[in-house]
């Protein structure tokens, strides 16, 4: 990698990279296949959370019992990723490194405050997911570095969670998506995280809305206000499938629905 600086690409599942190669949008001099590195294929539970190797595919995330126990939002959300054959090949490392602003795993990493583990010539380092995504298809990863694993911290006991996305077709990239996680205390929101995808240059949290929700019950008035504020705070782009206005509208819809689900789950024993 170091000797082919700027001319090399890593490939794992290839589900994002290969279309770009087939369209001849990229023409790397060197492709390094990391899909067989056994260390990258592990899902490991620790006291702090769950560490997922970069080579773990979406399908394995969907079926992981470790995640189902501690972070079921990840299992659940994987069903929205493309289709079965893509989920069998596409990896978490590939998805995060690709950094598509409308992809599910970058959103989950940001929502769940994941640590992204990176190794390179200068040694190992860890980036916070929130700092990792810089722009569409652009991350903090430099050309001679490899994303090796992601650690998702445990959710607080009794957390409610929700994920919603809207796409033109089953499995298509989201026009807008939202993930929410919250805990309740005495019937009001004690802690909450809300993250959006597809409606900005990168997936991102909406801290002002999170702050507004603290100490409140998710009632119709709060909901309407949150939905309105989401629409004010996102910054979507127009493309062939949806205008910025419509995406802004959808951002409010998916945020509201994700929080509906999180609130309902938060009440479950």
């Amino acid at each position, binding site marked *: 990698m170091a000797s082919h600086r700027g001319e090399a690409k890593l490939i794992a599942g290839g589900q994002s990279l290969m279309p770009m190669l087939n369209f001849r949008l990229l023409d790397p001099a060197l492709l390094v296949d990391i899909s067989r590195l056994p260390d990258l294929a592990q899902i490991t539970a620790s006291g702090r959370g769950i560490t997922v190797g970069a080579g773990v595919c979406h399908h394995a995330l969907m079926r992981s019992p470790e995640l189902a126990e501690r972070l079921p939002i990840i299992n659940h959300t994987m069903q929205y990723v493309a289709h079965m054959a893509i989920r069998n090949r596409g990896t978490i490392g590939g998805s995060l490194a690709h950094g598509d602003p409308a992809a599910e795993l970058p959103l989950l990493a940001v929502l769940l405050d994941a640590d992204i583990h990176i190794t390179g010539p200068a040694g190992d380092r860890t980036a916070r997911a929130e700092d990792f995504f810089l722009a569409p298809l652009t991350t903090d990863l430099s050309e001679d570095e490899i994303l090796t694993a992601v650690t998702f911290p445990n959710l607080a006991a009794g957390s409610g969670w929700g994920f919603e996305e*809207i796409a*033109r077709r*089953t499995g*298509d990239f989201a026009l807008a998506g939202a993930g929410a996680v919250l805990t309740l205390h005495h019937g009001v929101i004690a802690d909450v995280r809300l993250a959006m995808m597809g409606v900005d240059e990168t997936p991102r949290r909406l801290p002002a809305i999170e702050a507004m929700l603290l100490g409140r019950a998710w009632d119709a008035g709060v909901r309407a206000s949150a939905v309105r504020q989401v629409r004010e705070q996102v910054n979507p782009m127009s493309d*062939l499938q949806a*205008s910025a*206005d*419509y995406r802004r509208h959808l951002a409010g819809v998916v945020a509201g629905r994700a929080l509906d689900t999180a609130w309902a789950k938060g009440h479950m024993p």
Partner: protein
Amino acid sequence: MQDDARPKLIGSRVQRLEDPRLLTGAGGFVDDIQLAHTLHVALVRSDHAHARILTIDVSAVEALPGVLGVYTADDFSAKPLHATSRMKGYQSTGITALADGKVRYVGEAIAAVVAESRYIAEDAASLITVDYAPLPDLVDPRIAAASNVLLHEHHDSNILVSRKFARGDVAEAFANASVRVKDSFRFHRKTPLAIENRSYLADFNKGKQALTLYSSTQVPGVIRDALAEILAMPGHSVRVVAPDVGGGFGGKASLYPEEILVSLLSRRLGQPVKWTSDRLEDLLTTSQAFDETIDAELAVDKDGRLLGLKAEILGDVGAYSIYPWTAALEPMQVAGFLPGPYQLANYQAEVVAVATNKTPAGPYRGVGRPAAAFVLERLIDMAAKRLDLDPVEMRRRNLVQPHQFPYRTGSGIVWDQSGFTECLELACKGVDYPAFQAERNTARQAGRWFGVGVASYAELTGIGSRMSAAPGMPINTGTETATVEIDASGAVRATFGVASHGQGLETTLAQIVADELGVPVDGVQVIHGDSAAVTHSTGTYASRSAVLAGGAAHLSGQAVRAKVLEAAAFMLEADADDLDIEDGIISERGTNKTLSLAEVGRAVYSEMGRFPLDMRAELDLRATKFYDPEFGTTTSATHIAAVEIDPETFIVTVKRFLVAEDCGRLINPMIVDGQVHGGIVQGIGAALFEEVVHDQNGQALSASLVDYVAPSAAEVPKLEVLHLDTAARGTLGGYRGMGEGGTIGAPAAIANAITDALSHLNINISQLPATPERIYRLVTQAIEGDT
């Protein structure tokens, strides 16, 4: 068919004879054919919509290992072929292998690299640079129509076709109307999107000076005749074979530049030359369709009877007038079918087809009729709403009634007897229309956006020689041929000029021949899609094959049966009238005398001496017959859809879809259902998802399957199909053509259902596809307009 021998196979759900090979990967599509020493072509395509080509720099390529040559238009002297028409004022365009000095749409081929592999050819193509002098991009047909900048310099204007019709007294009809409804309707551009991309392999035999083109075409006969002319070769030295073809839907029913190109290259290089499109090329260059703006107004009396219809149809036909159908094909079909299956005497229409800097338009499933049905069925619902009349009742009052056939429509089309009213009633019964409406009302009361839509239509199918498949087109498509023969082993072969590409004609035509001859269906080998197998052919398109090839199969099957019986009668010393054939065994009624078909075949060909000399000249068990239904058949249907719209996301879900249709007698109900299903889903695609989008510079934005959104299994509902199954009069076998209809009715039914679901907001759907984005805007405007 003998009176006493009732058909056994016709009407049965016979499993397809094509399936075993296709299910096991043993099919043979063009790109599957691997000939020794095949050379591969990659094309340099225009990234400008309209530009003059200044220079083409190939210097970086010629020395590349594995590259055999680079070709541009200058390297070929073949004259352009024109799609001609008898239509007055029509302006044709020429088709050439490569752009000659000028490009007229993004994706037009400029230079061809020939190399040892497709990888090398693509490497090389990416190194060729083209200098352009840009010309104004004429993307909007209204601007193109008025522009002094011409796509084709020899033309007077960019208007390729301009026609007016009038019938009856339209002014009086409108003056007397109780209700007039009008709108400007827009049907956005589609691409047929066969899953197999176009693929061509030309194999020139130097010794025989003969060319074989393996082509993923629906029309091998048309391509053969065109290539013979372009290559200046006799027809017998040009053979076009359409092997297994991975869907067409009209997109493979025209002559393409790449077919000419690989043929010219193979002849020049003396080696097989292959080009296979990738999906990007397909989305840029395969003929597109359904691109019309239709301003229409309907006049109705107080009882809801249709009095008159006016329409202005503007068709965006893209950069070239496609061969052989011409640019008139779709816009003229819109005008022709706009009066629909209704009693509507007073009609006027103006059609303008304009060349623009976009992919050429061509036939696509339904051809013009999806847009025509959309417009008329919307107008009928708009009028019904004004009169507070149920949409079904409105149609019931206006459909051509059974006693009125043959009925000449306002456009001059003559409907032969068909179950117009019967299909409407069957569809209503099928969904239990009153219960269906009640369900809708209950859902509405619960605040759901739920709607029901109905659409009725009729189409001309199985068109005979008295009509032309495309208006003014000089090619006769009204006859079809079949040769049935039995060889010395007793095996049956039936050879046709049609070219099945998913329709299952190897099965349905075998069913007919097998019934005529009294043999098992899997004992009949059907040959199709090979121009050399028949004297003349065109192919499979325009819902013609069951009627025309089916008719020819009956005739030639009957003729061969007579020959078999004559030979067998001599061999058995019996009267031919006393003989039956069943399961390949000929038996004399009332005796135990039998003969197998193999015994007759062996006798006829190998033991000819058993027959008297005067029998021998006509003894071969072979007959070729042509069938011409003269006018053709009328196929009709009613579609009913229920949709629900998410009031927050504006995503439309089709909850139920039912078709009641009359395609005459069914040869194979399973295959007919499959054809209807496929048509419906393309109609759902047209109604909700699919749209070819160009920007103001003529760049295609929908150039991948991510961006051109075709429905998957998850986007469509369970599909219900009901058949009248009554024999059509006037055609052999009683079949009516079918295959396109699903795509004709579905967009209209869904547009009506969406409008119904949005009725509380007074929104009319006048553009398709009704994407969530469009519905979002309509709803936003309606709400803002209210406040």
